[in-house]
């Protein structure tokens, strides 16, 4: 189907391909260097040769930061955010979209407002409250709290529930179903695309987050992977034989879960996400 316009699309295709190379090259480089025994800046080192590659960098970084523990910490942090976002966020999204109550528009206004407040402004008071006043430093709860409910996801859920036909809900109400039952039996089964996108958004945020967990975790045993890898990059490089290779190996481990999840649900993610971002 492209043959008809083939001649006109060549410059475009060249441009897009150049773009893809620029975007993908660092990823390819990350992977190839993570498998190389020795890392040098030479162009020849871009493609690992069979003799000089192996998994020793992964072992090295594992020895320095114990990947298993870090991955578990990242996992708990992310799972906590996911759970809160899916439970509290879906309830809030449904309430905002489908139920009448006092202060609804105020709450919705607050939802939009918080998305424009940079987290960095809140970082310091949150640090004082969470770590100093509540004593939640080096704990999962302290890590999760500021991110617990992803407001972007709440917004997304609300928009989705709003678009479902009103008759559906009325019919269920006439049948005498309670709101919780309607949400569970009627709305949620139809909301799978929104739930999927919400899950992805809520996963990627905490999985990739560096600043907050970096502030609240001083104990290496509690640090998520992004934090322990950053610590390795700035302090522990000298402790392994091939520091760059080890850092690249750690970067691969950190990058892979989000990338895989994204590729699995790619089509869904980009479309729903962006549609709701620009159109509401």
């Amino acid at each position, binding site marked *: 189907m492209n043959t008809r316009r083939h001649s006109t699309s060549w410059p475009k295709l060249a441009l897009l391909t150049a773009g893809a190379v620029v975007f993908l090259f660092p990823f390819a480089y990350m992977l190839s260097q993570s498998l190389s025994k020795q890392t040098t800046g030479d162009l020849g080192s871009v493609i690992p040769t069979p003799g000089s590659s192996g998994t020793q960098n992964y072992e090295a970084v594992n020895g320095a930061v114990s990947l298993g523990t870090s991955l578990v910490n990242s996992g708990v942090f992310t799972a906590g955010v996911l759970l809160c976002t899916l439970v509290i966020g879906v309830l809030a999204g449904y309430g905002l979209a489908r139920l009448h109550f006092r202060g609804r528009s105020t709450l919705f206004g607050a939802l939009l407002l918080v998305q424009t407040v940079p987290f960095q402004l809140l970082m310091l008071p949150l640090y004082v409250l969470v770590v100093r006043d509540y004593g939640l430093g080096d704990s999962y709860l302290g890590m999760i709290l500021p991110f617990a409910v992803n407001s972007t996801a709440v*917004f997304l859920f609300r928009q989705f529930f709003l678009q479902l*036909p009103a008759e559906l809900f009325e019919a269920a109400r006439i049948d005498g179903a309670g709101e919780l039952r309607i949400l569970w039996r009627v709305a949620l089964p139809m909301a799978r695309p929104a739930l999927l996108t919400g899950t992805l958004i809520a996963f990627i945020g905490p999985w990739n987050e560096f600043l907050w967990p970096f502030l609240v975790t001083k104990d290496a045993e509690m640090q998520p992977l992004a934090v322990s890898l950053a610590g390795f990059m700035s302090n522990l490089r000298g402790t392994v034989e091939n520091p760059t290779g080890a850092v690249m190996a750690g970067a691969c481990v950190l990058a892979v879960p989000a990338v895989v999840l994204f590729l699995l649900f*790619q089509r869904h993610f980009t479309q729903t996400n962006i549609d709701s971002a620009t159109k509401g």
Partner: protein
Amino acid sequence: MSLPLISPASGGGSPSPGTAGRGVSPGGGPRGGLRGRPRGGGTRGARSPLGALFVTPYALFLVVVFAVPLGYTVWMSFHRFYFTAPGTEVDAPWVGLRNYQDVFTDPVVLRSFLNIAVFLVINIPLTVVLSLVLASALNSRVPLRSFFRAAYYLPYITASVALVAVWGYLFGTDGLLNHLLGGLAPDPSWLVNSVLAMPVVAVFVTWTNLGFFVMLYLAALQSVPRELYEAAGVDGAGRVRTFMAVTVPGVRHATTLVTVLAVIKGSNLFTEPYLLTGGGGPDHASASPVLILYQKGIEQAHPDFAAALGVVLVLVVVTLSLIARRLTERKGA
């Protein structure tokens, strides 16, 4: 972090299925704003106290995580505040604008704002031009479309710590780029060069976020009327002319959004200067306000100073966003 959705067209959207979620008018991108929903009109949800119950956990979350810290920052910025062990009461005397005075007379803070200006001057035009060009190219029948989309989006969803690791190595003194450049490599190298460090950070951030902005423009391009392109073709306008006369004005609301988001993201810069240029080096040449906020507030234990800096930063962001909005929206259709 959550992507800030300054998403107009949603506030007043009537929830009837016919109109919900179709906020984009043919003339341009998202419009509208936070308008109170007309009372009793349109919405046909159940009037039930359950609603309040459903949203209570989320409302509490917003109070604990946003409202209280927000008030706390402002309060802190007007007092002399010390970190204390839990349970100990220490006076926090009112000091008026002293903290703000300290912020504005601190050369490192001023340098960090200058750095952000450099960052934005490079980042915003680069982001707008590249993402619009790539989105336009993607907005036609080209083979491998979804592959390209995924490829562009990949850096956006990857942890910046991982990406910083690769870039730090690519741009390192003994890195691939310098090997390619040979004798042309800058000395001192990119990340330890006081002139080049901030531009490299700006290019890096452009690269990581570009995919998101490409998708944003791609969505906006769907609402540019096809007839305009046909009319331009009939008038004999060339490819570049059509792009400038139809595409660019057609997506100007998206351009506003892209600019505002770029300003917000740019002002929140932390991980990149902290890790890529080793703590905002060389000699604060790539320090960002948030990095200073962290260093002053937590490392050096001056939370009151940092709180004042945070308030100033947000005021600057809001002002810049309003200016960006003015500049991109004023030029009439």
